[in-house]
């Protein structure tokens, strides 16, 4: 009997397939932290995780693995995720980067599937384009809370699976010019958007289901594209209508032949690796005080983030 025995319906080779799978997770906040935890439970063997932030008190209402102590110590979200994964599956290999995912794109190219828990529309668009270029199925998660009238709120969200030859996030209306423009207008505005743990958990669970369905399918009814729309007021998750309209139609935003690194040269294969942003983790579950990130690093990180955001706009 193995620790994954209760999921043996996923197939006789499922333990091996899952342990060989390499999953990238972009953003380790409310959605990403749930995904990390569940993928560790199902036995995923390789993680590439990236998030430039440290936990703050306002993350504690939803960040899985976050504690009061980690807030006090300004622990990086990457460190929290690494600790969580290793506590569940010490054999898992975790490549954690306290960085924006764009800085570790070379490593992300080798992922089998990437899951994005990214807040910004621009970041979603970039992640989608990146994944298409390297033929990586991409799963995007997002949630929002809107005030529909004074004192009335709507919780909504979505999980989208897309990939080579499938409708992209622009085709499906997740990334729009209006959304990008609105985001640019709001850039630098103080205050975070409302976020709560239960929709994050539900959307993350659906994303994990899509990952497992692709790696170790357990039934015939599967699709290379999915758009699950969440209505948090009705507590409903359903396939979005737009998917039916867009499914099977060529994506006008990405040329299917635009794959790989257009600047690739054999001579560059032996170039020195890019500067490391990796956080080393020994695999031992240490008390939080021993694995925290020093607070003063955050000043430099914040400056770096601002510079990167400027460059990507």
């Amino acid at each position, binding site marked *: 009997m193995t620790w994954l025995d209760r999921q043996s319906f996923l197939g006789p080779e499922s333990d091996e397939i899952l342990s060989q799978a390499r999953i990238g997770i972009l953003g380790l906040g409310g959605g990403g932290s749930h995904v990390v935890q569940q993928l560790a439970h199902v036995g995923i063997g390789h993680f590439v995780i990236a998030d430039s932030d440290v936990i703050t008190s306002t993350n504690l209402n939803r960040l899985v693995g976050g504690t009061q102590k980690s807030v006090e110590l300004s622990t990086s979200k990457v460190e929290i995720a690494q600790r969580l994964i290793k506590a569940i599956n010490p054999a898992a290999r975790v490549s954690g980067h306290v960085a924006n995912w764009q800085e570790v794109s070379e490593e992300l*190219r080798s992922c089998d599937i990437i899951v994005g828990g990214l807040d910004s529309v621009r970041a979603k668009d970039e992640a989608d384009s990146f994944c298409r270029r390297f033929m990586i199925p991409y799963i995007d998660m997002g949630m929002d809370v809107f005030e529909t009238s004074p004192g009335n709120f709507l919780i909504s969200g979505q999980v989208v699976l897309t990939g080579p030859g499938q409708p992209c996030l622009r085709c499906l209306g997740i990334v729009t010019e209006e959304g990008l423009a609105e985001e640019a207008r709001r850039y630098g505005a103080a205050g975070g958007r409302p976020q709560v743990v239960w929709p994050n958990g539900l959307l993350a669970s659906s994303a994990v289901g899509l990952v497992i369905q692709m790696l170790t399918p357990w039934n015939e009814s599967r699709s290379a594209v999915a758009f699950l729309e969440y209505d948090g007021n009705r507590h409903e998750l359903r396939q979005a209508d737009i998917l039916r309209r867009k499914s099977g139609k060529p994506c006008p935003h990405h040329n299917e032949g635009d794959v790989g*690194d257009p600047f690739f040269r054999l001579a560059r*294969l032996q170039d020195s690796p890019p500067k490391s942003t990796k956080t080393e983790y020994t695999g031992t579950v240490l008390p939080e005080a021993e694995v925290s990130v020093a607070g003063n690093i955050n000043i430099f990180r914040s400056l770096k983030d601002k510079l990167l955001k400027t460059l990507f706009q």
Partner: protein
Amino acid sequence: MKVTIKISGRMLDEVRIDLARPHPFAWERVGFLTASAAKIPRGLLLLVDKYLSVEDEDYEQNDIVGAQIGSDAMRKAVQLAYRPKRALLHIHTHGGYGKPHFSGVDLRSADEFIPGLFSPIPSMPHGLLVLSDDEASGKLWLGPQEKTVKVNEFIRVDLHLSKKWGDK
């Protein structure tokens, strides 16, 4: 160095259907894949973007090996990979199940024609792939004079993301 090749399920199905067609005199059909490339940590990622089926008339009878492809087929393949620059991968199938192996003829002919691909397309690797009905094997040349490296991982990107080049 770890070498990974990715192909869409749709294209792999197209390749398998094409290679399974009988030819008037050639025992095995061959084709060419073009692939773009990207560096990954400690390795190389090849992303297949096109398949070139070798036309019936581009096969030639050969007293030693029975049949071979002629210079027109090679010219068309190089042309396909020339702009934008792509890796050129010769592909054929041996059928059967399990990890396929290259025959002596496969390896000898590859040693003759693959180094020549670096003249028109020196910036990309080139190689040789062989399929069985459920798996694949591959060898890659990183330069005309360099030792070959084997392809470590074959990924089929489809509804089911598979690390074999067989199952749907």
